[in-house]
């Protein structure tokens, strides 16, 4: 009962955020080039609606929106615990919210691509999905539609789970520790990459390569779009489940910090 109510509360809030995000994106796509053209050339000669409509920022913006909004864990925790809602209930409601939101964004992005972008790029269907997996189910197969939506849905959902993972971790930490980690983690990653670049020749990394190939559905073929989409779909589904369980465990440890 409470889960349903928190779901409604959260979903309404995120839906509003989603609306603002799409509006801002469209302003960015359509208004910014016009403003820049006017500022730097003084005319709109180089601007054509046809070209503006070719821009496809939506999947990238969707990922950004989901990562940022899912990262917000501590703020909602404070609000819900003030209102007598347990961590578990918030976690359960959040699963449904992110699932539905990412599905919704995936469908919107799909529709926008085929209704607006594709006619403007001369009907050359070159989505990321089609380039890699488009031929697997048959390029003109009906099943490519749900598969493409499913693929993007799980991709967006994975990013939401990742955002929530970092948000949950940071909710456990004090501001000072968090800041130190924000500096230490990128430095650590750079050092790790440098280390791997320097010493990878001496290591046996074949298994890593094979694993990555398997996960992305790589198939040895000369034709484009014949990779197996169900490998990444399955991998993302497993990662979402694992990530969600890990997030639950972390969120069970969140407490009100000394303010």
């Amino acid at each position: 009962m409470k889960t349903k109510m928190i779901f409604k509360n959260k979903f309404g809030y995120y839906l509003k955020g989603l609306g603002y995000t799409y509006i801002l994106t469209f302003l960015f796509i359509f208004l910014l080039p016009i403003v820049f053209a006017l500022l730097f050339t003084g005319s709109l000669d180089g601007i054509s609606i046809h070209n503006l409509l070719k821009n496809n920022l939506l999947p990238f913006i969707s990922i950004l929106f989901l990562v940022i909004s899912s990262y917000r864990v501590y703020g909602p925790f404070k609000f819900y615990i003030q209102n007598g809602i347990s961590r578990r209930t918030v976690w359960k409601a959040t699963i449904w919210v992110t699932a539905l939101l990412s599905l919704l964004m995936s469908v919107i992005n799909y529709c926008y691509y085929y209704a607006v972008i594709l006619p403007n790029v001369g009907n050359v269907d070159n989505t990321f999905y089609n380039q890699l997996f488009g031929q697997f189910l048959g390029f003109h197969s009906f099943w490519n539609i749900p598969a493409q939506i499913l693929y993007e849905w799980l991709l967006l959902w994975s990013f939401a789970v990742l955002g929530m993972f970092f948000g949950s971790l940071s909710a456990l930490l004090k501001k000072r520790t968090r800041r130190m980690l924000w500096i230490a983690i990128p430095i650590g990653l750079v050092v790790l990459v440098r280390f791997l670049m320097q010493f990878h020749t001496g290591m046996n990394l074949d298994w890593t390569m094979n694993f990555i190939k398997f996960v992305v559905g790589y198939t040895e073929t000369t034709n484009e779009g014949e990779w197996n989409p169900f490998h990444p779909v399955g991998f993302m589904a497993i990662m979402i489940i694992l990530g969600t369980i890990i997030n639950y465990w972390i969120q069970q440890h969140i407490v009100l910090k000394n303010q």
Partner: protein
Amino acid sequence: MGIKVTEVAKKFGRKQILQNISLEIEPNRIYGLLGRNGAGKSTLLNIITDRIFANGGSVTIDGIPTHEHDELLGNIYLMSEVNLYPKRARLQDLFKSSKNMYGGFNEAYAKHLCEAFELNPKQRFGQLSTGYRTIFKLIIALCLPVDYVFLDEPILGLDANHRELFYKELLDTYSSHPRTFVISTHMIEEIANMIEHVFVIENGKILVDDDVDHMLSQAYVITGPGETVDQYTVGLNVIGTESLGNLKGNYVFGNLNDDREIPDTIQISRMDLQKLFIHLTSGEGGSK
């Protein structure tokens, strides 16, 4: 039945804040939770409402642990000193959210309180002054259909008029709809007449857990010439002393030995709750 806190302990780093505290909060009573700064009052309230975790012990309502229990947590409202509401949210929206999450909210009474305190519900939480944030939280606390209301520093930033109004509304709502209030404040004088039972926390331990009437019936001030007062209070639990020239006042907590003759030069009067609290927690005096 009610809230039962059993052997609750809490450490922050190396500092022991609560040391195996046990107490019971019964339905439909007004409690005072008193203690000096840093005594552990807010920590205890945060543990009861599952906002932070204890290092040991348990908190139950009617025998069921409150931890991660929506129904039990939804029967408690803690109005805390810290602000947990989003700053950008409008007050009217926060009233609505509280109503949804607690499953009810006395909107008519909230409207009346907003008018009485001159609070505009269309404002955003972040726009409010400290006093008005307190007022907003008090309105929520008084309008929710919960059985247990914890008020941690409920008069923070309130002027004298608003404090008076709050005390009046608190007593009105309590008499029309009895429920448990636990008030934690430093303004003891102002709540002394309201509270029925008092918990005093000192150094993370419960120092006093008693009905106010019973407690005050054992609290005396013995005044008179210093030497006579000292002679009379020998063997009694003297918790504090004040002197002015030759005159002396000894604060006694506990039974007086009524069989003894009271010297003519000595006066025995009752202590008020604030004085009693000050002397109990000041670190001087006897066994307490």
